[in-house]
């Protein structure tokens, strides 16, 4: 499945429905459908939050979901600007941080504890990528292309 999404938060409900329908049509168990709908939506949310959020078609996110054998591969590509550099550093740091744990569940618990210690006014969760690793059992990576297109991938074994 491949589709484009305008970088607009209001598109997310449709992305959620579309992802869920696609995975359901592939005859995956309902729990698996919910898990990878979450993976797709969290990656798209990040793309909208940290990409060029102009709302314009030209800055659309490209979403692809590939099911082959027992593996699911999700790619979300979006153009990024200079202001996204901080996010890219943070993304790199959080991926390294997750890889420092033997089990992503431990990373998830640690992040939950960190959030609980942050002030009420701090609304940012930083939980999405950790959740993809923990709940989706996914290997996450990213590549920044020469054309300033960020591609974030999540790859998981469906029986994992």
């Amino acid at each position, binding site marked *: 499945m491949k589709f484009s999404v305008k970088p607009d*938060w209001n598109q*997310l*409900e449709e992305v*959620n429905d579309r992802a869920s329908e696609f995975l359901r049509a592939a005859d995956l168990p*309902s*729990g*698996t459908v*919910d*898990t990878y*709908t*979450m993976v797709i*939506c*969290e990656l798209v*949310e990040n793309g909208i*939050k940290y990409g060029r959020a102009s709302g314009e078609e030209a800055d659309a996110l490209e979403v692809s979901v590939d099911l082959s054998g027992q593996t699911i591969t999700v790619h979300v590509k979006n153009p990024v600007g200079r202001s996204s550099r901080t996010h890219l550093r943070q993304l790199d740091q959080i991926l390294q941080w997750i890889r420092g744990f033997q089990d992503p*569940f431990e990373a*998830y*618990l640690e992040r*939950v*504890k960190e*959030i*609980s*210690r*942050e002030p*009420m*006014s701090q*609304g*940012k*969760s930083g*939980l*999405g990528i950790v*959740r993809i690793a*923990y*709940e989706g059992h996914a290997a996450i990576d990213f590549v920044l292309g020469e054309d300033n297109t960020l591609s974030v991938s999540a790859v998981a074994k469906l029986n994992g």
Partner: protein
Amino acid sequence: MESSETYRDGPLEIQQEAHKDSVTLAFSGKSILRDPAEFVLPILLGAMKQAFDQEKRLVLDFRHLSYMNSSTFTPIIKVLEKARVGSGSVSVLYSKELKWQDVSFTALTIFATSDGRIKIRGAE
């Protein structure tokens, strides 16, 4: 039931009900809010204050929620921590039949207290 109020934001609905011994927030639909702290946190804190002022249990019922983004967990985590270090009682109800809820909410058992004041409970 003593009182009832409904809050909506997009596909998310939160029904607040005051009962004799509890104040319940029942979540349904999908939570894909960008900044749940703006919408969800004030509702959570308001219900928490109402419950604790009247020495009632705050019940957070997620069983009819079909999707929740990671950002929505933030205010829930903060309210659970606030309750944990305080003296009020909170129950989180989730559905064990929904795999995503079972996996997501299991992690919140770190806030449960041995005296049952804070409960994280999966319902069959």
